[in-house]
């Protein structure tokens, strides 16, 4: 029983910090666990942008939202999608929630979707009311949606935010808390991408963090 703590479930990925600078790299292997930021500091973690041409296709994600409506990611093909893995119990998720809610209002053309893991629908609904979250979230207590990303860009921590381009490929990932400015820059970059056109070598640094 040494699991009395379930704090920053999977703190940040330390090796990923190195990858943040190497944005042109086609792939980036993240080491989990041995991190020392996630819980001592303020949840700032790491992010990675994948240039067009080296993007993994997002898995077929479907399920029911917290309000019980059916949801399929494939229906959003053609739009840029921001997929945020969160839980109402997760303190960094609570801190980033206002930024996500505000960005969802600022970019009506971008589809924002949450994936609420390891949570109950009642607590999640209270969270969404409290932070005035206007977009839906998948009800994923068993993390089956998160697991579907195995082999592509799996969430390494809660929160994890993915930006999926118009062709349904994963364009960026942010492990840990996102900031308004950081995520806005990523969204703008992906919105400027033209599908299928390799914007090679372009990237940005440090979308995550304050």
């Amino acid at each position, binding site marked *: *029983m*040494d*699991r*009395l*703590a*379930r*704090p*920053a*479930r*999977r*703190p940040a*990925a330390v*090796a990923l910090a190195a990858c943040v600078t190497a944005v042109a790299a086609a792939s980036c*292997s*993240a*080491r*989990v*666990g*041995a*991190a*020392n930021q*996630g*819980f*001592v500091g*303020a*949840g700032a973690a790491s992010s990675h942008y994948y240039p067009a041409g080296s993007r993994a296709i997002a898995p077929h994600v479907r399920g029911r939202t917290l309000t019980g409506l059916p949801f399929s990611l494939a229906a959003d093909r053609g739009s840029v999608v921001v997929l945020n*893995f969160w839980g*109402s*119990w*997760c*303190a*960094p998720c*609570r*801190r*980033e929630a206002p930024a996500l809610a505000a960005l969802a209002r600022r970019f009506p053309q971008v589809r924002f979707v949450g994936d609420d*893991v390891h949570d*109950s*629908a*009642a*607590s999640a*609904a*209270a*969270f969404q*009311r*409290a932070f005035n979250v206007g977009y839906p979230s998948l009800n994923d*207590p*068993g*993390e*089956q949606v*998160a*697991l*579907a990303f*195995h*082999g592509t860009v*799996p*969430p*390494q*921590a*809660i929160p*994890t935010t993915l930006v999926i381009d118009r062709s349904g490929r994963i364009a960026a990932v942010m492990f840990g808390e996102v900031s308004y400015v950081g995520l806005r820059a990523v969204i703008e970059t992906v919105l400027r991408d033209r599908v299928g056109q390799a914007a090679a070598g372009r990237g940005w640094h440090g979308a995550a963090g304050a």
Partner: protein
Amino acid sequence: MTADQPAPAGQTDAQVRLGLAGWLRWGWRQLTSMRTALVLLFLLALASIPGSLLPQEGINPQAVSQYYAAHPALAPFLGRLSAFNVFGAPWFAAIYLLLFTSLAGCVLPRAFRLARSAGQPPPNAPRHLSRLPHSVRLSTPAGPDEALACASGMLAARRFRTRRGDGWVSAEKGYLHEVGNLVFHIALLGLLASVALGALVGYKGNRLLVAGDTFANSPTGLDVLRPGRLISGGDLQPFSITLDRFTARYVSAGPERGQPAYFGAALRYNTSPGAPMRPYNLQVNHPLIVDGVRVFLIGHGYAPVFKVTDGTGAVVYDQATPFIPLEQAGLTSAGVVKVPDARPEGLGFAGVFLPTAVGVNGRLASAFPAALFPRVSLVSYAGNLGMDGGQPQSVYNLDISRMHQLAVRPVPLAPGQSITLPQGRGKLTFQGYRQWVSLAITYDPGQFPALISAIAALAGLILSFAVRRRRVFIRALQASADDELAAAEPAPHAVVEVAGLTRSDAAGGFEEEFAELVGQLRGALDRVAPASDAPVLVKGE
């Protein structure tokens, strides 16, 4: 270990002229010496001490951040020394890499030497056989060549490896001693490699799973994950486990009352998302093996189900909440309920769950681990739970520093009963309980190779102890007239000298074997040349 490494001759004056290659060779020799290996082993033990004295990030990150808060001056300094991540620290890695190199550097050359030695033919017979520990002289009517052919045939029949030279036969047996030794050394390397493999690409994780819930084997699905150095989150086998039911039975009477009699967790699992689920009944010490990953049942407890309605009438909390056992005899368990999004203020509850509640001297206690008379007793708080600052919290701790206690009469709740909170803050209902199990997930691809290596090492060691390497030399000379032996015999044609030598006779017994060999040789020589008299034993040892 190369304790038998010869010291470089004339080291003292050679040191002055040591070039780079010399220094490298000297360093390598030092590194691969037994003394260095022992020192490194000791250092490894010493270096892991801080890992047990200080909280570790991989095991209890919460405790680390508490340590930072309690020791603001010391903690950052210790942090820079990786004292909170000892087993991932560069200096720890340096020690075990050096130890590995030292052991490999010691064992590998020995393995080569043993392999060479196992393939070598018997050596030349020494000139003076009588100087060897065991030796006899025989005379035979057969000629020297005949006698040697006969001896060589006899030894070959006894599965000696034989070699003939000019006037001598040399024979050796017991190469299995070397083979055993070689197997031992190679298995030792295999063991090292297996352990390294496990440490590099294996992982360990824990997960507390409430009955009815599902978890995914992923970095976010596990409560604690300790990955190997080459493991990334995407490398975890993507299986899922659902806990349908946990059954615990306890001894209900007698001196063992309350002792567990049976634990069983009815699970369903699949190997990838969407694959069909298969049932499994998980019991203590009988792990479920999925994709080579072992899932052990290591603990259990209760998760009372609470429903909280806030001041606006909205349901803001409705779930089973794992409580952690404080003691095993009655499974009195402690836990917290956090409702940060209740209105008008956040709510928090901390308390205990008593499976079989009894009053002892006016205090509540649990008399039995099964839930015969379940009650919860909670203290209610309102205010800021401190969760919005982004600082991760344990789900088992309630930060009440910015909360105030609510005036609620402290009555233990039975299932179905509620606490109505003052000032229209809503109410909490204890709806019942579910059970949880804690699962240990271990993936160690080095485990099986390590077992094989350990068995092979043991077998090799036994073989090398049980089998003696022994040599027998025979020289045959044409008897000359002035030989006292020849003179004593009517018609001896050859004097045969037989000598025996064993390298490692820890178990003893070579003397008997040698005597038997000599007896057989005498018989064989007899049959070759049935002389009037048998060959005469002249000189013993």
